[in-house]
């Protein structure tokens, strides 16, 4: 799906001859400054830079402000704005029908953490290849400011008062659910979002991106842990992440031993340059411990939290052919008359 030939040196056109504009969507109807819009523009950038074929991408979502955003990027890709909390099942069906498609899905913390919890847990368990973006603002935006299940304890909302229930950590949920690509980021950190998106798109399996995406209208006050000010002030990166496409040679700009490279199946590499802490995203227990500690200490830690490329995708688990089922000709879909006749004979 990802182009691998050497790039032309043409600024305006990408490898498949498309302009940035070809990856744009309809004008956004979200609030000015909504985190979701900045994520949409990173999706547009990444799709352009990676030269994704728009017709190979499907844009999937549930219901919410976040789930509206697929209308605001990749106009040339088919999209499916499904039901509240039910995007994962629709993606699963589409992925089974045509494994050649790459689902880029956008959900919200309510869409995934509340009504969608069951489908979320089960899609990562099945390891359906897709990019699963959660635009996490700790609040129900579209219904005007109720708490979602990811709101931290003690959070206050003008509308809903104080939250006293523990937050659901959607990254931790994904990891114990068997997900092999789990990252957290911040809509205010465009570069990191971009690199993680590229890595997720190149990953074979369910890739979860839990992106804190402030709701400027209902949950952006300083003391909200899901706000821009808080994020900018408190974001702590696990590492400095760079995605290196298959066709570029990897030039390491850091001391040996002060970084990790993760080679992805189809060629590209994820470079993780060490920052303050030693962190190995291939260590499941360390990842879980980090998340539990982070919640206890109210730390806002971003980066590639966990990666594991060992699991088979759902399509491979089911032993499906490379040809998309949706492309099978009638001749392969309907057995011959002889087959029926023989069967009838057996049942006589």
């Amino acid at each position, binding site marked *: 799906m990802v182009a691998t030939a050497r790039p032309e040196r043409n600024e305006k056109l990408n490898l498949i001859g498309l302009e940035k504009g*070809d990856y744009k969507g*309809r004008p956004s109807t979200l609030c000015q400054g909504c985190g979701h819009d900045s994520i949409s523009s990173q999706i547009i950038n990444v799709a352009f830079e990676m030269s994704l074929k*728009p*017709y*190979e991408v*499907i*844009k999937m979502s549930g219901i919410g402000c976040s789930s509206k955003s*697929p*209308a605001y990027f990749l*106009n*040339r*890709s*088919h*999209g*499916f*704005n*499904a*039901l509240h909390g*039910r995007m*994962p*099942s*629709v*993606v*699963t*069906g*589409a*992925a*089974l*029908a*045509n494994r050649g*498609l790459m689902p880029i899905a956008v959900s919200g913390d309510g869409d995934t953490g509340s009504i969608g919890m*069951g*489908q979320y847990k*089960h899609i990562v368990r*099945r390891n359906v290849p897709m990019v699963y973006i959660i635009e996490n603002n700790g609040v129900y935006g579209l219904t005007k400011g109720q708490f979602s299940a990811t709101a931290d304890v003690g959070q206050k909302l003008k509308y809903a008062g104080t939250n006293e229930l523990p937050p659901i950590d959607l990254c931790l949920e994904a990891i114990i659910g068997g997900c092999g690509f789990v990252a957290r980021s911040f809509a205010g950190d465009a570069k990191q979002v971009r690199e993680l998106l590229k890595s997720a798109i190149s990953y074979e399996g369910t890739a979860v991106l839990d992106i804190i995406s402030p709701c400027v209208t209902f949950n952006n006050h300083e003391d909200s842990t899901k706000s821009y000010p808080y994020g900018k002030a408190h974001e702590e990166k696990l590492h400095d992440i760079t995605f290196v496409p298959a066709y570029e040679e990897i030039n390491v700009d850091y001391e040996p031993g002060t970084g990790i490279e993760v080679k992805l199946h189809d060629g590209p590499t994820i470079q993780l340059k060490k920052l303050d802490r030693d962190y190995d995203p291939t260590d499941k227990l360390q990842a879980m411990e980090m998340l539990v500690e982070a919640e206890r200490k109210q730390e806002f830690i971003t980066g590639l939290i966990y990666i594991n490329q060992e699991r088979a995708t*759902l*399509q491979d688990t*089911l*032993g*499906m*052919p*490379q*040809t*998309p*089922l*949706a*492309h*099978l000709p*009638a001749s*392969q*879909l*309907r*057995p011959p008359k002889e*087959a*029926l*006749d023989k*069967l*009838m004979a057996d*049942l*006589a």
Partner: protein
Amino acid sequence: MSTADVLEQPTQAAEQNRDNIVNDFSIVVATVNGSGSQTANGLLARAAFKMGVPVGAKNLFPSNIAGLPTWYTIRLSKHGYTARREVSEVLVAFNPATAQDDYAALPAGGVVLYPDDIKFLEPRSDVIHYALPSKDIVKKANVDSKLRDLVANMVYVGGLAYLLGIDVGALEEGLSHHFKGKAKPVEMNMNIIRMTLDWAQENLTKQDPYRIEPMKATDGLIMIDGNTAGALGAIFGGVTVTAWYPITPSTSLVDALNAYLPLLRPGEEEGAQPYAVVQAEDELAAIGMVLGAGWAGARSMTSTSGPGISLMTEFAGMGYFAEIPGVIWDIQRVGPSTGLPTRTSQGDLISTYFLGHGDSRHVILLPGSMQDCFEFGWRAFDLAERLQTPVFVLSDLDLGMNVWMTEPFDYPDQPMDRGKVLSAEELAQMESWGRYVDVDGDGIPYRTLPGNTNPMSAYFTRGTGHNPQAVYSERPDDWEENLNRLQKKHETARTLVPKPRVERKEGTEVGIIAFGSTDSAIQEARDQLREQGVETSYIQLRALPLEETLRGFVNAHKRLYVVELNAEGQMCQLIRLFMPERATDIIPLAHLDGLPLAPSYVRRAILEGEKK
């Protein structure tokens, strides 16, 4: 020493004995659920079938894995009637827990076979008793202890074989059919049957009039259950994605898919299976997967029952409104709620027709025979893709899980209809395209599939209001026009769904309207009514929305009785809405107790209605 020895047999039976009752009686086998009696019971039915005798078998089992009572009735009818009868003349009383009641329910002149360790508390002199030493026989056969209970059931098979004259060859053939030719189990079971026969020869004297004698009435027929038939239909219909969640009585449909797909659809890629059958986490996910797959161009289906249908409500409405194909089988069981999971019903009609909040009406196929199950298995996909909408197939437990004899199935007489799907090339020929534009005036728009390389093809599917270009719209006129088009599409559906089967009797004022699994009971009831001087016409509906054939039928009759297995006369209500001008002439005969329809109910009700 068994009751048979102490009781002198009734004279009346002796009399009947003079003229035998051949191929026109019923057997009820009462056993303990989970004791493996299904093999024995199926074997008896199949043996009769193989002897050329028309047979109707109904399994009345509990919602339980093992231990509770279960009954299996086998009706033998030289007239070809297969419906459930309210009495059975021959009782196999192999369940101590129900033996006394089953025994008491026998008609005078009836026959009881039972293991000799059962004692009847109120012995009857008007029935004929045969006690079988099942324990001894099984002990003598010294089979592995784990299998003992299983094979014990062959004792009554042997007993019946001796008394009724069931052909031993047919039994052996039946066993090897069941065990797919594996010699060992066949031998083990035949051994018990033979031992019982030998014992019976020596110890039993035939005193009852009931006999099974060879006929040629089943030549060219097959035996199959509707869930298997539906699965086969789906396979010949090109199903590629199945997402389901287990629920009785629908599970065996997916079991059949899993059993037959590898045989019938091996595919061309080495070691790969060109289809997917996924057990979802629940029905909400199952229907979501079906619609996702249908949207992406696969022929997708699910199979469920009442509770699953209820959980699919929101997605059903979305499929209808966003116009996404998909096939949903509902093997109806008794509701509301969890109800009676192992009993049959036709109770999901209205709730499924209107499934989903807001104004939605769905296309529903109503199989009424094994052939319908097979045909609708493939045709449902053609309709779903042609109409771009979820299509429901409402079968029921009687059709789905009971084995029926039937004419063999016809190979689809038409190539697959994939509906109005535009390729990249076709789009290139057009200067404009809108996902929801009614180009042909039939209410059915054109769609494109994801992966279409033509940039024009992309559109955004949504459950929210949209204009003909699939762009979000809250405009009042956009909404109204879109819903008007959907109604037009529903009118188009009327013309495309399977037509009813009609049997007109000229000159009669009475019409019977029915659908689904009740066909055999209706036919028998009509014969009985004729004998009592009431001629009836009959229309068997095969789909919703209702269509013009029905209108013609209704208008050709004065009084129309709508026979259905639910409490509220659901089909009757839909017909009254379809033909308000005849509403009062359309009479409900609705009745639901979980049992397959008995002809007697129809006969009595119509005689009453006709004041005869």
